[in-house]
């Protein structure tokens, strides 16, 4: 409402996910890999292991090229992307955390400088100084994570900040420490993963020792990771309702489990068999490990993102900013006074032409486009296709009560109708003109049923489509009247009927008629 909404048919959420997951995959390596380099360099000096030292020199160059360039650029890319997709949220975060980011920038600056010096000075500096620079790199990279973790977790669990507006409450929010533990373990695991994934480039005689050493890093952290994730989820409200907000999150959970198990098995196999069969440490195995690692972290990040709904800053138990960029008081105001009257990035009233479907299109852009596309990612067309206007209007009116953790519709009654008409026009359904009343109670009941019940149910069909007919089989009119009055008691997922008593009676009569067919 305050900022223009970018019309991106691939979906802003998907774009953020692609950029962010890729960055996370590299940035965690940037932290853990720094620790690995410093510890492994000290080990090589202690043991006089020249082969390890020679490999570390090569690895540090790869490390710098990947983390300095791709890691840093993709990090900036997240910032660019969220500024385009969620400008209101980015503005809020920057106002609250500008000094947090400034402090993180100092660590980033030291991290970049020390990484460049470290990779380029193996031959130029004495061992003690070079190792010290390795540790400077790791400490600054880790501190960068320590700061960013506060901002990331705030977006999910703003906690007491919602009341106190204190920076410290925002930063040290309920999931700060569990998340830091999970991410630190991820960093250590990825340090080993990247070594395993690139060790095939070494001569076969060195691969086994390298792979076993890397496995010592990857396996314990990989095993401890799920336990830490459990602690994290316990600190996160609504975490056990995975899939409640976005059904795809339930699939992501399955994916993360399968990928993590396959990943752990492959890691263990490489670690155990590398000595006897060094050629197992190969490019395909390296790629498989990288892909499985990417899928694991990508799915986990997707799940975490989905748990924030209906907020972009917050979670189902409370939040500051809805996914459509509106605060709760703003939604109250737009429900009273209308969305288009307050939205800045719409056609001015003096220049509006066309029927209320044109207004509906503008409402869709302001209220829904932040998450939904027309036919791409989270396509709205799939959700409304074939549904009558009344049904869609009910869906809009009851958004926040439905599955999917949607924010309340931020408009008045006329705008609900305008949006419903626009959405119905997308799926090819046309509004049927209101039939003149015939006094026939069944016709009135049918209209109420279509407007209310079919916003969730289909009339008949397979069980996965949630058909209405089997559920009401054998209902009498009295039973139907009684049940319609206590829908949420019959099933907590159902929305209570909010029509008039006459509508309820008409609906009951029609349901009874349907149930006897």
């Amino acid at each position, binding site marked *: 409402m305050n900022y223009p909404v970018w019309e991106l048919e691939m979906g802003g959420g998907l774009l953020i996910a692609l950029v962010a997951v890729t960055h996370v995959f590299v940035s965690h390596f940037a932290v853990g890999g720094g620790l690995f380099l410093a510890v492994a360099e000290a080990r090589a000096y202690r043991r006089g292991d020249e082969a390890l030292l020679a490999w570390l020199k090569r690895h540090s160059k790869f490390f710098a090229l990947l983390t300095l360039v791709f890691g840093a650029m993709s990090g900036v890319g997240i910032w660019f992307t969220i500024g385009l997709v969620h400008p209101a949220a980015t503005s809020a975060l920057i106002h609250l955390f500008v000094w947090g980011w400034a402090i993180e920038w100092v660590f980033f600056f030291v991290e970049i400088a020390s990484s460049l010096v470290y990779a380029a000075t193996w031959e*130029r*500096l004495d061992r003690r100084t070079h190792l010290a620079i390795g540790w400077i790199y790791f400490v600054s990279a880790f501190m960068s994570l320590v700061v960013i973790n506060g901002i990331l977790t705030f977006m999910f669990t703003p906690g007491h900040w919602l009341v106190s507006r204190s920076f410290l409450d925002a930063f040290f929010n309920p999931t700060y420490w569990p998340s830091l533990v999970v991410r630190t373990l991820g960093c250590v695991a990825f340090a080993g993963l990247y070594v395993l994934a690139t060790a095939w480039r070494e001569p076969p005689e060195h691969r086994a020792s390298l792979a076993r050493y890397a496995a010592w890093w990857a396996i314990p952290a990989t095993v401890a990771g799920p336990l830490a994730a459990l602690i994290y989820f316990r600190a996160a409200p609504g975490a056990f309702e995975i899939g409640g907000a976005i059904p795809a999150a339930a699939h992501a959970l399955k994916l993360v489990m399968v990928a993590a198990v396959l990943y752990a098995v492959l890691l263990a196999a490489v670690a155990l068999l590398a000595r006897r069969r060094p050629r197992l440490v190969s490019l395909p195995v390296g790629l498989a490990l990288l892909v499985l690692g990417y899928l694991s972290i990508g799915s986990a990040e997707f799940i975490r993102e989905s748990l924030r709904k209906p907020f972009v800053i917050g979670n189902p138990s409370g939040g500051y900013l809805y996914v459509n960029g509106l605060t709760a008081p703003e939604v109250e105001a737009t429900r009273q006074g209308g969305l288009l009257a307050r939205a800045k990035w719409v056609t001015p009233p003096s220049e509006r032409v066309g029927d209320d479907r044109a207004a509906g299109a503008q409402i869709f852009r302001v209220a829904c486009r932040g998450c939904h596309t027309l036919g791409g990612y989270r396509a709205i067309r799939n959700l409304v296709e074939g549904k009558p206007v009344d049904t869609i209007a009910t869906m809009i009116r009851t958004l926040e009560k439905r599955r999917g953790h949607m924010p309340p519709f931020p408009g008045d009654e006329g705008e609900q109708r305008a949006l419903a008409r626009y959405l119905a026009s997308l799926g090819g359904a046309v509004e049927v003109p209101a039939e003149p009343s015939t006094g026939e109670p069944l016709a009135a009941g049918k209209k109420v049923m279509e407007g209310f019940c079919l916003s969730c149910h289909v009339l008949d069909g397979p069980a996965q489509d949630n058909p209405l007919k089997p559920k009401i089989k054998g209902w009498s009119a009295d039973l139907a009247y009684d049940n319609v009055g206590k829908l949420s008691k019959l099933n907590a997922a159902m929305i209570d009927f909010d029509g008039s008593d006459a509508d309820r009676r008409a609906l009951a009569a029609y349901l009874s008629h349907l149930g006897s067919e």
Partner: protein
Amino acid sequence: MLDTSVVASVDPIPLPAPTWLLTFFLLFTFVLHVVPMSVTLGGGFWAIWAAGRADRPAYRELAARLGRWLPYWTAAAVTTGVAVLLFLQVLYGPVFYAASVVLAWPWLSVIGLLLVGYYGYYFRAYRFAKNPTAAFYVGVVAWLAFALIAFIFVNQMTLMLHPERHLGLYLASARGLHTNLAEPTLLPRYLHMLVGAVAVAALWVAGLGALALRRGESEAGRAVLVLGATGFISATALEMLLGFFLLLAQPHEVLSVVASGAAGPLGLVLALALALSAMRILLKARTSNSPSTAVLVGAGHLVVVIVLMVLIRHLTRQATLGGALAISAMPVAPQWGLILAFVVLLVAGLATVGWMLRALSLAKAARPG
């Protein structure tokens, strides 16, 4: 186009520092950014120029040396640029985000172009000796990527100053494929920045020539010094001309606001005088037997000119925005403890980097030969 000025409301979360402090950090970090950004962009130009004349050993060596350092300058440009964007967004968010959504795809493409330019410079640095032809062409592509980034930035930074255009462009298409080509100051501003970068980097070339002379490479050192000094003088002269056109392209109201105070005209005259003085110093340095001091003094002049130009740019920005965004009226709730922590950590961070550079310098001095 709609004649409606739409500006997003100021964020209800207060600014975490007084506006003067945030403005100071915005301008300070921008000065820090302009130097490596200019060397990254202008240095790429000189590296291509020298590689194109690599039949002459002095220029071949120059192309190799410039290429080796370009990735480091790029790292510095990106690192300092992040800080500028941070302070810019906190102060100018309502117009910055709106303009970036209008230009969404070009703006987002900056990230891809950065990857092309950055990796391109690394490729050039690593492959120059083994495969100079590939290194040359990749260097050209990388430079073009950086030049395009600069063009996109000029589009974004000028569009954000004109909120009266945002709604019209957005309603014409919300898909984020616009540019700001209709802006009268766009071309002179872009060329001013581009040629300025070539001038700054030319001073780096002159510095490399002076260092070569100190190492006793008299012929090669002199050739590089003359190239750098001549490049600096020519680019600075052209820069002055473009600056004049940039001034002329400004709307009358903006010019009159900038000219009404003492700071604008005084800063401009001082910058002109310093630039002319730097040109004179570099002209003399071409034939000097110990040009290092002259190049350093010229660089000192240039740093002051950059500071002055950044201040004038800020005045122009304020004048162009006019009353559309009242930064001074934004709510403020300073986080003094964090500000102190930032300053302490900044000093500690700079000291750490200083220690690393000192260790490098000592190691270099201790190396035999």
